[in-house]
């Protein structure tokens, strides 16, 4: 819309009332601050709503401009200082913890933090953090390699690539940041300087801000995980490990501070995130636990074993999945006893057995798409022992389990959106969706086996865990050392 207004084409935007803050922010940042918009109703029937707003809609493109709308010009240049506060540490702690009333939430919202106390980012502490990288403090965070654009072709034009050197914009406010400003957030999160290359790779990945609604997390693969003491074993999703926790927290502080995100004001984010990961999510692969036949995540993503890589993931969509107690799993594999053995029909037959057949029951009952399947080393080895010589073969096996008839797939919630109203091509057949028979089998577990990600991590308890899946965009951490 902004580009149309700049091109001399009058426009009117129909949005919801709670999106006004985001629209105002976008309009200002992109240069047409008086953009006209109006509201559709969230509850009223569509037929009634159109009757209600149609006059206002035409008014938006025909009503002559006001003086205020006509007299806009000049350069918008917000006043932002490098030094935010001067005073004692005690006063600084209080300053950074300030919160503002959020009209939409009806509750205070932290202005510079995630709501928890922070480490005050003094010049001295930030300078120490900067020793964790060779990059200059005033360098604008930018892409270190070309990456593909993830959007519909009709929406992005002809160039499907974002190019190396492109400054990273943090959504929802499209800010940019220097290496020093990322260091400020890393200090506030409690990071150590040796963690800083990982934090900078997260910054290159737009800090997980996505389109502004957040929800992204990060998986680290490669030697740096062990170098900086990341937890990839017992309790890796829980509290206690300084590297995992503070690096993950830094991403959320960047979302708040670099992205300028305020739910209900600058971004429509109804739930905020999964409560299990709302102070950040950064975990590591257990490279030492990989069966010798399987590649590490870094190698899967096209890098070398000795290279350290950060991959974007979506832990906000955690699922409970098929549940079993560790002892039930052990009973299955040792002697063919217990519930899993009964279900799989291998009672009394010693393992290894294919536990994926148990896991996949009902796996896509309430949510389509791929999964990230976290499993411990022992369970990975069992899969290798029964013939899964690669992670890809596991991913493909799970994917094939997800097939269901078109008539069932059409009842799911997201495909109306994902198939562009069923006007697109179904990938496995190469045919238009609307030409497929009701009984034609399609995958509910993503477009291809690559929608699934297999991750070896965790301690020794025989359980697995899962969340939203797929191979996300990788970023080379070593570029930021």
């Amino acid at each position: 819309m902004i580009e149309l207004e700049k091109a001399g084409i009058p426009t009117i935007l129909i949005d919801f009332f709670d999106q006004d803050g985001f629209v105002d922010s976008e309009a200002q940042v992109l240069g047409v601050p008086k953009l006209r918009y109006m509201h559709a109703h969230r509850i009223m029937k569509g037929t009634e709503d159109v009757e209600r707003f149609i006059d206002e809609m035409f008014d938006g493109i025909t009503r002559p401009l006001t003086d205020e709308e006509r007299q806009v010009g000049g350069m918008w240049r917000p006043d932002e200082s490098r030094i935010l506060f001067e005073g004692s540490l005690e006063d600084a702690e209080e300053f950074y913890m300030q919160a503002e009333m959020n009209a939409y939430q009806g509750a205070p919202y932290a202005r510079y933090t995630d709501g928890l106390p922070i480490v005050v980012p003094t010049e001295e502490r930030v300078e120490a953090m900067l020793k964790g990288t060779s990059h200059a403090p005033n360098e604008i965070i930018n892409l270190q390699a070309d990456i593909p654009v993830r959007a519909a072709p009709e929406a992005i034009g002809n160039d499907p690539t974002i190019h190396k050197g492109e400054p990273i914009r943090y959504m929802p406010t499209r800010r940019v940041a220097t290496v020093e400003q990322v260091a400020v957030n890393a200090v506030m999160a409690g990071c150590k300087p040796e963690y800083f290359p990982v934090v900078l790779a997260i910054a290159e990945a737009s800090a997980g801000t996505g389109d502004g609604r957040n929800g992204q997390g990060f998986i680290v693969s490669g030697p740096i995980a062990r170098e900086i003491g990341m937890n990839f074993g017992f309790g890796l999703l829980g509290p206690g490990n300084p590297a995992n926790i503070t690096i993950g927290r830094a991403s959320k502080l960047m979302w708040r501070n670099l992205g300028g995100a305020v739910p209900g004001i600058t971004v429509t984010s109804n739930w905020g995130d999964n409560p299990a990961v709302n102070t950040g999510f950064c975990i590591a692969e257990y490279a030492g636990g990989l069966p010798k036949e399987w590649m590490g995540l870094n190698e899967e993503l096209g890098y070398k074993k000795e290279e350290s890589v950060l991959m974007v993931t979506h832990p906000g969509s955690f699922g409970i999945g098929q549940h079993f107690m560790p002892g039930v799993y052990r009973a299955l594999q040792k002697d063919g006893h217990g519930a899993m053995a009964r279900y799989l029909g291998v009672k009394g037959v010693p393992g290894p057995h294919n536990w994926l057949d148990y896991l996949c029951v009902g796996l896509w009952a309430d949510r389509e798409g791929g999964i990230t399947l976290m499993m411990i080393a022992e369970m990975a080895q069992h899969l290798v022992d029964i013939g899964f010589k690669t992670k890809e073969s596991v991913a493909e096996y799970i994917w094939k389990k997800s097939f269901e008839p078109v008539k069932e797939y059409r009842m799911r919630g997201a495909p109306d959106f994902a198939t562009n109203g069923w006007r697109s091509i179904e990938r496995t057949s190469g045919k238009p969706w609307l030409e497929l028979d009701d009984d034609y089998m399609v995958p509910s577990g993503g477009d291809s086996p690559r929608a699934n990600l297999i991750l070896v991590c965790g301690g020794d308890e025989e359980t697995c865990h899962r969340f939203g899946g797929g191979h996300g965009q990788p970023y080379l951490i070593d570029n930021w050392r």
Partner: protein
Amino acid sequence: MAGKIYKCLNPTGIQMPAQQFPLAERIDKIDGKTIHLNICGEPDITIRLERKLVAEYPQVNWLIKKTNGIDPVRMSEEEKKTVDAAILGVCW
């Protein structure tokens, strides 16, 4: 004795300066104009809206593009030259 005074840094990044533009001049009437209707998602409103506009405003030349996604389908440069106004429905 006064305590040490620390300089503490700003974590909020940089908002890049942006040239500000006024709105485009509005059209004086819709009759005889080419109006671009760009629809994203939410068919309960947009199906009704599209039908009503086409049926009840035949004097307008409607250029309609739609997607169930959140990124609007873009007009070509040639289409932009022929369009007099645009309505964008983002109700996803």
